[in-house]
């Protein structure tokens, strides 16, 4: 699974000067490198471990459109359409699966929220269909009885994130990108980055796409690790047709301080079922915590009782890079002239990676952007506590 790095290993004898260095080979970093390489820049990508091995490998890979704010909507929708384009050339192991998503309403109050969301999406020309109780039962017969309905978002899809990141990296390598694997960036300036082996790499600009580690390189960033658990089952083909999310998920995603779980189930192309989700602040331990795993699986069984008899074959955790205002940080890093941030994507890093990279490349290359970058500029975050 690990990217074979030897042909691309950077050695100290290289004296190249790069147009851009990207720190962090997750989905965001590889997408940024891919955009810049495609524009003809000489790019080096620096990944301390393996491509797509951090939060990218831990995430669900739900390519979602979201409506918490206009800015979040714009970024998720734009990125979802970029994923649709990329899907045509993505490698099969990236398992792009246009299964659609179903937000599940448990009661009348949540059904009112379904109606509101449907109106929001309809007004913005995003396909969205309200399902009543019967239509929900027909769409997902393994959901428990007595649910009120749901919202079907047919353009949502899923992907296997680490293989998507590897695909983007390999494609960029084939176009001349230099991959520096096994090294991390310890310091940066407007003209060079320092690696942990003491090497200095000259570069006209640097993109920091190191997720929760970004604050180490650019002090002042308020990025908090927000831990999540996931579990995956053995293969039960046709049990589940759509990415399912309970409407209550938003309560979990929005709560700022308490630990929470929400039902989230995803069909994989293999027939496996990926089960989430949990959110915790204040912990840096990657250990699976039995009480969180239990609460998460109990929640899943409440929505899909038959899951109780299914075999979970693996569970793991990861850390989302959470910002105080729930929007990512994309753009120039205050305090530098040539350092750019691409981090803080919380639970939407896979979804919004491609739009993040496109917007950043537009800014760097002086191209016009399809959506405004302003809501994601990092200066908002620095201004708050300057």
């Amino acid at each position, binding site marked *: 699974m690990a990217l074979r790095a030897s042909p691309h290993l950077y050695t100290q004898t290289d004296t190249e000067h790069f147009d851009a260095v990207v720190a962090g080979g997750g989905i965001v970093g590889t997408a940024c490198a891919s955009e810049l390489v495609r524009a003809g820049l000489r790019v080096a990508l620096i990944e301390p471990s393996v491509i797509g091995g951090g939060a990218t490998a831990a995430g669900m890979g739900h390519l979602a459109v979201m409506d918490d704010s206009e800015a979040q909507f714009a970024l998720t929708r734009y990125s979802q359409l970029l994923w649709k384009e990329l899907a045509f050339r993505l490698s099969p192991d990236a398992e792009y699966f246009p299964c659609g998503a179903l937000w599940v309403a448990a009661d009348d109050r949540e059904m009112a929220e379904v109606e509101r969301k449907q109106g929001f999406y309809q007004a913005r020309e995003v396909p969205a269909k309200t399902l009543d109780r019967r239509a929900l039962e027909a769409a997902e017969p393994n959901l428990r009885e007595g649910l009120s309905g749901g919202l079907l978002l047919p353009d949502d899809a899923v992907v296997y994130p680490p293989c998507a990141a590897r695909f983007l990296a390999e494609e960029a390598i084939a176009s001349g990108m230099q991959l520096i694997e096994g090294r991390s960036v310890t310091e940066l300036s407007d003209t060079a980055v320092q690696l942990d082996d003491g090497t200095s790499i000259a570069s006209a600009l640097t993109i920091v796409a190191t997720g929760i580690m970004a604050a180490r390189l650019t002090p002042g960033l308020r990025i908090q690790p927000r831990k999540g658990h996931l579990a995956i089952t*053995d*293969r*039960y083909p046709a049990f589940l047709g759509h990415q399912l999310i309970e409407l209550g998920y938003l309560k979990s995603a929005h709560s700022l301080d308490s630990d929470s779980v929400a039902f989230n189930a995803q069909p994989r192309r*293999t027939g496996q079922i990926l089960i989430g989700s949990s959110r915790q602040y204040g912990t840096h331990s990657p250990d699976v915590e039995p009480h969180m795993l239990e609460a998460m699986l109990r929640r899943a069984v409440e929505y899909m009782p038959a899951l109780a*008899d*299914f*075999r979970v074959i693996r569970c793991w955790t990861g850390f989302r890079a959470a910002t105080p205002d729930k929007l990512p940080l994309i753009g120039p890093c205050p305090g530098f002239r040539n350092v750019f941030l691409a981090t803080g994507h919380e639970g939407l890093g896979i979804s919004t990676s491609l739009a993040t990279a496109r917007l950043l490349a537009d800014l760097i290359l002086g191209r016009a952007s399809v959506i405004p970058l302003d809501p994601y500029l990092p200066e908002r975050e620095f201004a708050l506590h300057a």
Partner: protein
Amino acid sequence: MPDMVNIVVNGQPVSVPSGTTVAVALLIGGVTHFRTSVAGEPRSPVCGMGTCFECRLTIDGLPHSRSCQIQCAEAMEVVTS
């Protein structure tokens, strides 16, 4: 003569002494191809004690049931894959 229990394996009736595990019932009946791996290879029980997962069958509609850990029950439906 021990008590006998009757199960159905791929639609065929099989009768074994009560207390027999499903895995053993199949082996008594000459079935060795329990399941088919993802790569398309035939699989049979290896460990007999619930750790190797090679003996998985669909038992009473539940896929991935470890047949070496489940005793035959009257009218149990077993399907190999």
